[in-house]
């Protein structure tokens, strides 16, 4: 029964995965542009963020339509509410990628003050977290959702490491302050992406159990 509704939900979930792919791609591109000092690519990334924003509104409209016309309850209601929250997090992650691209534009092709190792590593973990969280969402896997949040601790560690390193570079040579500050913003953006993925994980737990939880990795 309610076959049309089920079909709508499936479409919605496909769209959600498409949006997650778009965000992942944006993060990858922005960090690659940073490594390569590719201002032209950065400008494209900045421009492309509109597609992520539009996808978010598309999905949101579909959610509103389903709530208004199908009056979902129980798991179906929680699924739609979870999607509404997840797209908000994904959209912000897209903004963080755009933020990295803007910094690439500000750096304007200048050589970086240090070899970029930890920052790309942060981006790698963050995009892995996004992929795993969407997989856990699709599989309704609470255990995986909890584990993913532990990965955020690694992102945080790398962030603090990057900050410490950049501070010592600035102390040594104050001429690098502007440049280092830009890189700190990059690291901060990536760190925030990890936090946003933990929000998604909390939503997976809500979807499956109906419980609204916060800081699930710390609860463990």
């Amino acid at each position: 029964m309610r076959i049309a509704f089920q079909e709508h939900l499936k479409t919605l979930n496909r769209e959600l995965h498409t949006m997650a792919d778009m965000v992942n791609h944006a993060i990858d591109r922005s960090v690659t542009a940073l490594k390569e000092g590719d201002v032209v690519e950065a400008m494209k990334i900045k421009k492309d963020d509109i597609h992520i924003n539009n996808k978010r509104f598309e999905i949101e409209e579909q959610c509103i339509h389903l709530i208004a016309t199908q009056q979902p309850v129980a798991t179906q209601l929680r699924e739609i509410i979870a999607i509404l929250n997840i797209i908000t997090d994904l959209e912000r992650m897209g903004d963080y990628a755009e933020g990295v691209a803007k910094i690439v534009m500000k750096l304007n092709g200048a050589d970086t003050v240090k070899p970029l190792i930890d920052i790309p590593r942060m981006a790698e973990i963050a995009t892995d977290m996004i992929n795993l969280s969407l997989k856990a969402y699709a599989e309704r896997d609470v255990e995986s959702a909890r584990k993913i949040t532990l990965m955020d601790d690694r992102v945080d560690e790398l962030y603090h490491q990057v900050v410490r390193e950049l501070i010592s570079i600035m102390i040594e040579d104050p001429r690098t302050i502007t440049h280092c500050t830009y890189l700190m913003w990059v690291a901060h953006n990536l760190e925030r992406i990890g936090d946003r993925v933990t929000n998604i994980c909390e939503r997976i737990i809500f979807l499956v159990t109906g419980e609204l939880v916060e800081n699930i990795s710390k609860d463990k």
Partner: protein
Amino acid sequence: MMNLIQTITSKASSFPLFATSESRQSGGLAEAKTSAGITGISGTPGKEKAGKQLRMETRDLTVHYGSTVGVKNVSLPIYDNQVLALIGPSGCGKTTYLRALNRMHDLTRGASVTGSVLLDGKNIYDSEVNPVIIRRRIGMVFQKPTPFPTMSIYDNVVAGLKLVGIRNTSVLDEVCERALRQAALFEEVKDRLKSPGSSLSGGQQQRLSIARALAVDPEVLLMDEPTSSLDPQSTSRIEDLIHELKHQVTIVIVTHNMQQAARVSDNTAFFYVGDLIEYGPTSTLFTKPKETRTEEYITGQFG
């Protein structure tokens, strides 16, 4: 108003179940303590809203029609000034359960009821209890509006009072206006109280039926799909009315419309083939039901 209550009370004083407000309260308090002990169903109603008072309670209520079981061992609390919705597919026993709450099955040939239905802690099926008094304390509104066809709007409302011998016009006038106002119908009919009840629209007739039920000042109002024959506008008026009325009476409503159950009730009970499957706060039951069958039913996967 007090005069009226005293009049009815004095007329009913020979019936032990016609409780005064004082004894109602103490009965409710005493019973609230026992509600946490209800077992065999999901949810822990007694724990979830401490401080609520029990108005009614069924314990192991079973209704047979001949050899067929309509409702099996249902134990449920019914809290004061709250709305309890009974939901479930056709034939699940929800109407049978509702009708057992004011001894309507007494009138059904072959029907038998076991277990107990407590009103303020006293079993309404005890042999010394007068079912007529019970039905005055526990009013009923049916699926289809039931105005007495030959009676005026006014006479429809005060019919229950006249039945117990109240003839004082000023008392009847006062009750008529109060009941019609409670049923949100007064403004629409105040200039034509002498017109036949059957001259009203369907939605108005249903509110007239509610006014008639309210005229005798019941403590509990049972509603059996009260809006199923009404248009959306009349339905929404009745739902608004339920919100208003629950401050004065305890309401149990049977509905096929799950959104209606979700909108109007504080607690919901889901029945399936005569069994109570799940009971709990409405918001919980519609967002995270504990039982798979509840989830399947409310999401439209069966029924």
